[in-house]
């Protein structure tokens, strides 16, 4: 596979390490009420879609960017690639 890196252009997927669903960005607040349930849901349950899947790839043998790749799990077609940091910020994560 070839991942079009938003900064570096097309890169071979071999340069990357895969983590999983991009929902792992949405880490719950560990000090909040009901954190145990929220963390269970966050860490263990997956939509696991057959189709478009937003997922985290790490450019381990490259620039060390975490990317959010939107890829079709039926065809492996890659639709969009974003810097995970930008996605995280857009989802309201900061400090």
């Amino acid at each position, binding site marked *: *596979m070839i991942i079009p890196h938003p900064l570096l252009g097309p890169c071979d*997927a*071999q340069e990357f390490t*895969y*983590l*999983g*669903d991009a929902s792992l960005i949405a880490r719950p607040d560990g000090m909040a009420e009901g954190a145990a*349930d929220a963390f*269970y849901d966050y*860490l*263990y*349950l*997956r*939509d*696991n*879609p*057959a189709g478009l*899947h937003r*997922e985290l790839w790490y450019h381990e043998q490259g620039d060390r960017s975490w990317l959010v790749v939107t*890829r079709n*799990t*039926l*065809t*492996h077609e890659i639709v969009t690639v974003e810097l995970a940091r930008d996605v995280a910020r857009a989802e309201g994560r900061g400090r």
Partner: protein
Amino acid sequence: MRYSGFRILKEALTGHKGWRPVWRSPEPKPQYDIVIVGGGGHGLATAYYLASKFGQARVAVIEKGWIGGGNVGRNTTIIRSNYLLDGNEPFYEFSLKLWEGLEQDLNYNAMVSQRGILNLIHTDAQRDAYTRRGNAMLLQGADEQYLSTDQIRREYPVLNFNDARFPLKGGLAQRRGGTVRHDAVAWGYARGADLRGVDIIQNCEVTGFRIENGICRGVETSRGFIGAGKVGVAVAGSSSRVMAQAGLRLPIESHVLQAFVSEGLKPVMPGVITFGAGHFYCSQSDKGGLVFGGDLDGYNSYAQRGNLPVVEDVAEGAMALIPGLGRVRLLRMWAGVMDMSMDGSPIIDRTPVEGLYFNGGWCYGGFKATPASGWCFAHLLATDTPHPTATAYRLDRFRKGLMIDEKGMGAQPNLH
């Protein structure tokens, strides 16, 4: 019809006119006591044991394609029970015992071949971990044996003993492990179930569950509604897709695992070996092909095909372990969709929807589990209690912190 050598003799002399379909192709009935979704190894085994051991007469297996077309038809055919953890070992040992009597039970020769499986050791730390596992197996009543490098050399002279990057330091052998002709498992269970009245319905895709007041009443299918007292889902790589139709999210990701076969060769590999310093395992089929595989491609996929990097990685493992393979040719590569769970161990449990039962999360170990998975799922469906060897395979174990994590990789499915 009973199969036997005499039967073959008789048919051969009378023009093979007596052979009948191995399973019928019935029209679905409007209502069954139990409907199994998924005509793979686990689904067919479940139906067989429901009918043969739990006295369930009104059972149907519905399959969206042809039976045995999922992972039971695309694996590396290995059976073994070499597990470490208490939650796993009794279950897989139960499975191995069922394999040992399977052909006589089914009257179908699935070629269960206990040629042994050998896990190779390359570091002291690995030796310690394997020793712990071997002892755990012996404590559980399974068989396991420590082999020195010299013993391994006698059995597998083709391995790299001279210039290995990771020198061989011994191995753990389970002599009762081995291989089984994978397609025949599906066919044998199908035949056994069919003979006991189970309806096997191919080309029938589940499109939804009919759930009324939190109770599952049956399945909507491409061939209409089929009512059921209980519905058991055993669809491996499609688990998330099917269970989503009942509104459930699972601790499962679908990943692609490739497997490979070489051209036919005169026998060189007596049993199954696994490389401890790379992702490679290998056996030789009765036809002579080396059957081998390695690691997951690593990304979520439903595509039943993989990519070149893993092919190369597996070939590197092959060459590192068996240098004589350089001129052997890879004949065919294929891939299956694995229901990778969050701790690498399966789930056989009821679900929050009454009447809906789930069997999945087999990762890439589902084939060897087929008989016990079928039996235990049948036990659960028939009695509403877990089989004693499958009590740990609960759906709520992640919430409670009771993971069964053989590899210690945590909640990352592609690492199990």
